[in-house]
């Protein structure tokens, strides 16, 4: 279990884990997000991560998409919803989401950089 004690979630072809890393935390996506309503599992998971990041004053979290082979627009909506939570935080509670992506997967190259425009300074692409 990770330092926030947040359990992994999975449904169909997707598994999402929260892992400790040397500097903070990593949200690791493996599989496909192509179900009709991914918000059912992603929204509560992201909310827990968000609350934990703020409560423990963790400065960054890596969103690791290397193992995610497909993300539909409903999944993009769920990720965008998480990112938009950062817009509501006071400066002393803000953290940064670092997106790690796989340049060999076409949609990751075209989709993921657009997330950096949602909330200035909240998301960085690695």
């Amino acid at each position, binding site marked *: 279990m990770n330092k926030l004690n947040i359990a992994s979630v999975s449904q169909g072809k997707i598994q999402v884990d929260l892992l400790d890393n040397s500097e903070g935390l990593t949200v690791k996506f493996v599989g*496909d997000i*192509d*179900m*009709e*309503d991914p*918000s059912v599992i992603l929204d509560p998971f992201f909310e827990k991560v968000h609350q934990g990041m703020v409560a423990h004053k963790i400065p960054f979290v890596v969103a690791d998409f290397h193992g995610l082979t*497909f993300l*539909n*627009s*409903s999944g*993009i*909506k769920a990720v*965008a*919803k998480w*990112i*938009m939570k950062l817009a509501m935080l006071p400066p002393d509670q803000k953290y940064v989401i670092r997106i790690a992506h796989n340049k060999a*997967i*076409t*949609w990751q190259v*075209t*989709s993921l950089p*657009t*997330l950096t*425009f*949602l909330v200035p300074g909240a998301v960085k692409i690695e």
Partner: protein
Amino acid sequence: MAKPDGYIEIRFGPRWKYISPARVFIQNFIAIALSDQAKADAIAMATSELLENAVKYGASEDTHCIVQAYPDTGVIQASVTNQATEKSAGEVRALYDKIMAGDPLEAYITQMREAATRTDGKSQLGLVRIRYETGADIQLDITPTHKVTITIIVK
């Protein structure tokens, strides 16, 4: 446009479980037809988004997808047709008019921000995503009986 070198047509009852295999099939078809993996990935994503909309908002069993490849020019044309209700056809028209206006990236970002605050379960990101990420020419045709066809042309 010249006669296509590759052509596939898929018809299925609107069930979510058929979208993923259709996407993979289309991806493989285009990769073989054009020897262009990036374009195959982009078209597969786009048709998957269109099929998701057709399944979510379709009012009958018949969803119809045609993909045509023109290897000489590298052009791909894909269309998805489904029967809609008058209300959902009107919503598609309104969304199309909205997302086709202005810069593709700005429209995408605006739509993502709006999606994040929606509480009706919809994302309404599929078309704007296709427009920005594939650079496709997107055409919308709605018949008087509310049959909706969305065609994308990627060069």
